[in-house]
């Protein structure tokens, strides 16, 4: 029986598990979270308010399929090594709390793997964004959704993309007063992305309009071509400066105004988590505005036995992830792409891919955002590296720049600042970036002792 390993328990990974089980494979699903569901269905058995969940019935169906199919489910498991060879795929994970005692090591050897590691939410730097009270939109959403906690009493949401709307809605439902939602993109870009060929959008436009309606019911203003360009406060957030923006996201002089608040949620889209795919040797497409795992119609990557689905292949949302996952899991298990059982997911995938293109056109990051930074704005938070420091070293290769400035060398390893740093390098006339820095032989923090234990037991060392 073919054994398919699935990396990630969000919509793409769950759909992949279901697809692989349907095609007759044995399935092992690994996720670093405490529960299945990923970011999209982040939840807590007791604390979660069901009004904050979307398409929950699909999650329950998928979870049921896993249990019914006898899939091995490993949660709280960090995969720190992924290797592909002609013999198959080997994943190594540690299970248990990152700072706890007695973590256990688990190896998963499989014939194929589906990489469904999803994406981080991306927040562009703003002067003052290191003040307590500023979170990413994703963190605000996670706290609201899983724990029913509001990040502040008066919250301003700023960034770009339709994700800001459910975040604002969740904040309102858990009791925060959302002072405003500032969508950085201007109306012409939004119209260019959302309005043409409405039949392709299926329910998406309705969803968008539904949220706008929900915001209106909560009396939350939704402003376009507007952004938080500065966070104010001494020891914590006391307010923000919002400004109108031009089409390239440059603040328009004279349009600034102060808004009092005690929390700010920033979200400018998502960055795919590529480390596992890179470790497995998968080819990557794109440039610093967006790099994704290259896949074919059957979600195959450039490496035999390695498939990818969901946000790592392009930011398309949960519906795209579900469709791609279903295809990836089914084919990884040995099923055929033209199998009648894949007709639905293949058709859904076609629709959702059109949606991803629209999202980029409507909400994609424009280069003018760097003009709201001060020279001494901290860009890399882990190592406290300023915009000036990065710009001064922009003329050397990215690796040398990072070693000189320490940008991206801290605990997050550039996951938070990578895109912003590359944008500053690019605007300062620096060298083109590559994925070189994302190539990490060790994918997740692992203890030296856990590594050492492997040397004692692994005959290959």
């Amino acid at each position, binding site marked *: 029986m073919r054994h398919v390993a699935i990396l990630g328990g969000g919509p793409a990974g769950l759909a992949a598990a279901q697809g692989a089980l349907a095609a007759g494979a044995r399935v092992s699903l690994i996720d670093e979270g405490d529960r299945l569901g990923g970011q999209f269905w982040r939840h807590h058995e007791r604390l979660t308010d069901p009004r904050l969940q979307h398409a929950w019935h699909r999650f329950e169906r998928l979870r049921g399929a896993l249990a019914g199919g006898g899939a091995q489910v490993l949660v709280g498991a960090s995969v720190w*090594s992924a*290797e592909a060879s002609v013999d198959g795929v080997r994943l*190594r994970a540690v299970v248990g709390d990152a700072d706890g005692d007695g973590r256990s090591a688990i190896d998963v050897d499989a014939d194929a793997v589906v990489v469904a590691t999803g994406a981080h939410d991306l927040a562009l730097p703003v002067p003052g964004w290191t003040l307590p009270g500023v979170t990413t939109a994703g963190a605000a959403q996670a706290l609201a959704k899983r724990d029913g906690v509001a990040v502040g009493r008066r919250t301003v949401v700023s960034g770009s993309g339709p994700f800001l709307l459910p975040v604002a809605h969740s904040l309102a439902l858990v009791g925060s007063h959302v002072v405003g939602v500032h969508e950085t993109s201007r109306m012409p870009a939004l119209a260019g992305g959302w309005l043409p060929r409405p039949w392709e959008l299926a329910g998406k436009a309705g969803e968008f309009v539904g949220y706008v309606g929900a915001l209106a019911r909560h009396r939350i203003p939704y402003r376009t071509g507007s952004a938080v360009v500065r966070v104010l406060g001494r020891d914590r957030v006391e307010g923000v400066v919002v400004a109108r923006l031009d089409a390239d996201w440059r603040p328009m002089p004279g349009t600034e105004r102060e808004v009092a608040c005690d929390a700010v949620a920033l979200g400018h889209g998502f960055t795919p988590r590529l480390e596992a795919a890179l470790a497995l*040797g998968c080819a990557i497409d794109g440039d610093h505005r967006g790099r994704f795992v290259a896949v074919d119609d059957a979600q195959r990557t450039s490496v035999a036995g390695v498939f990818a689905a969901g946000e790592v292949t392009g930011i398309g949302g949960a519906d795209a992830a579900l469709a791609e996952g279903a295809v990836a899991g089914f084919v990884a298990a040995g099923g055929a792409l033209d199998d009648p059982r894949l007709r639905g997911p293949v058709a859904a995938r076609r629709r959702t891919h059109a949606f991803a293109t629209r999202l980029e056109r409507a909400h994609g990051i424009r280069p003018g955002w760097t003009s709201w930074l001060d020279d001494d704005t901290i860009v890399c938070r882990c190592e406290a590296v300023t915009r000036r*420091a990065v710009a*001064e*070293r922009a*003329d*050397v*290769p990215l*690796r*040398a720049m990072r*070693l*000189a*400035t*320490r940008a991206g*060398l801290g*605990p997050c*390893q550039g996951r938070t600042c990578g895109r912003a740093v590359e944008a500053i390098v690019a605007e300062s006339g620096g*060298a083109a970036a590559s994925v070189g820095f994302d*190539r*990490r*032989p*060790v994918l997740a*923090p*692992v*203890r*030296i*002792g856990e*590594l*050492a234990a*492997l*040397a*004692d037991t*692994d005959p*290959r*060392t």
Partner: protein
Amino acid sequence: MRVVVIGAGIMGAACALALAERGAEVVVVDRVGVAGETSSRCEGNLLVSDKAPGPEADLAIASNAMWRDLAERLDADRPAGQPATEFEAKGGIVVAFAGGEAALERFADAQRATGIRAEAMDAAALAIAEPFLSPEVARAIRYPDDAQVQPSNATQALLATALRHGARLVIAEVTGGLGRPGRLAGVRTTAGPIAADVVVDCAGPWSGEVAARLGARLDIRPRRGVILVTTPMPQRVFHKVYDSDYVGAVGSGDAALQTSTVVESTPGGTVLIGSSRERVGFDERTGVAPAAAMAAKAVRLFPFLEHTTLLRSYFGFRPYAPDHLPVIGPDPEVAGLVHATGHEGAGIGLAPATAELVAHAVLGTPTALDPRPFLPSRRGLRETA
């Protein structure tokens, strides 16, 4: 005199500075820019402790002394934004576990005869110098001259200083030579031809490939090395501390994975754990075997490391010649071509002395160093090329 230096790593940057300061018109050509490869993927060791008596030890002793002045000069004279070299003469301590004492003492005795300072430490001195070291350590020798720099930053500082002395940097790939067979008159690059009286090949692990493009034969191969970095922590390692098995691995021709333990702290608070050697070509798939083996040996040396967390790991390719000696001097078959490569894992430390030998080869400037053991015409190199 116009000189093209191929490669903007530590060797190219040091040669560019030495040549520019001695009056040459220098053009550095690199396909990605300063410190884009090996020099940003290594530890920055300036070691004498690992050198067995011989020509490389002599070069290392001279170069180690030269680094002290050089680092001071680079750090004193730097414009805003240019990083410090992070030169630190912290000294090294080589330790042996039970059974290894005699070999370590013999090695240190031989080193002392060549002029390397190697001081035996008693248990009390060791406990003061490295209180967190394993109590199972049976013997320790201190090498006060072992030092380090942050290699990427040091390379950037060297090249920046060379540029201020009039050198130029061209980002382009060398595609071939100018001139007639046997007589090089410059290089062809993706940014156009560059005429030169002499071309210096400082392309590190790629210098054999570069030599071939210039019509010469040079047997230089890559050796992969992996380094582990922990999360920052309060300082508990105060010197560069090596297991004496380090000594055995450097000259080995074995292709299989070898590891030897080097543990040290960085100014950022992280602990570096090196190093592995694998002769696997330019293969970037490191797997976990080198990391696991190094972790096990590091924990044996410093038991507290068991509970520390690995933050990241990185790897680089080091250039080595079949006889494991640096290759420095004129090509025996192609006039106008000079090599400075093959320094294996010691290029950062050997760069200043190598640059002096290159200046001697190109400009005829005087040197107290003996260039003969490193000449590309030596037997150990020609037999395999």
